[in-house]
């Protein structure tokens, strides 16, 4: 079975600073995808970034980047130059390569302080 663990229930960061959210997963699969989703107070789920397991290069989307360590089964999200609008719940998600079903972590609540 696949499991996704987010060990930080809540984090805070000052505006303009950098923060890293942790995620680990457990799988015996070799082909899979990893995602980070953001859920602001509106509760709309928004895709932040995605990573294919077969790619060694870490994904980057503007101020968001990941540190993907396949051997360690770690997939952390780094948010640079944090903005007030980044305040949200962040969910890490795992998807097996041959089946279209996601497994979500329990989420990390990020609070960006002015």
């Amino acid at each position, binding site marked *: 079975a696949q499991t996704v663990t987010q060990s930080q229930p809540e984090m805070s960061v000052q505006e303009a600073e950098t923060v890293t959210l942790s995620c680990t997963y457990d799988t015996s699969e070799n082909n899979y995808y990893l995602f980070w989703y953001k859920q602001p107070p509106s509760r709309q789920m928004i*895709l932040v970034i995605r990573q294919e397991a077969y790619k060694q290069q870490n994904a980057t989307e503007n101020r968001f980047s990941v540190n993907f360590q396949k051997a360690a089964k770690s997939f952390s999200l780094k948010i640079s130059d944090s903005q007030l609008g980044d305040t949200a719940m962040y969910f890490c998600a795992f998807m097996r390569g041959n089946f279209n079903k996601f497994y979500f972590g329990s989420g990390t609540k990020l609070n960006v302080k002015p």
Partner: protein
Amino acid sequence: SQTIHQWPATLVQPVGSPLSLECTVEGTSNPNLYWYRQAAGRGLQLLFYSVGIGQISSEVPQNLSASRPQDRQFILSSKKLLLSDSGFYLCAWSDGTGNYGYTFGSGTRLTVV
């Protein structure tokens, strides 16, 4: 472009009453469809998923059921609601490859009183 619609946005229902939440997708065909539930301050629990018309897979035993009467329509139902059915319900779709993640609806906040 593809869009997903979910309604109603908010619902307050008495215990024992029926439930019907609807989700429709536009701009794509044969999507994979999903229903998730999120308890307050918690993660997402997959309830049902469907890879085609009439094909429903249930992830957890519960008081709810799902149906897919049309290709782009996914319905979450209950005959008699329980207090424990309260929560935030999210519908999502993907293109069948999953390579681009899920696209979620805006959610339904259900309160059973």
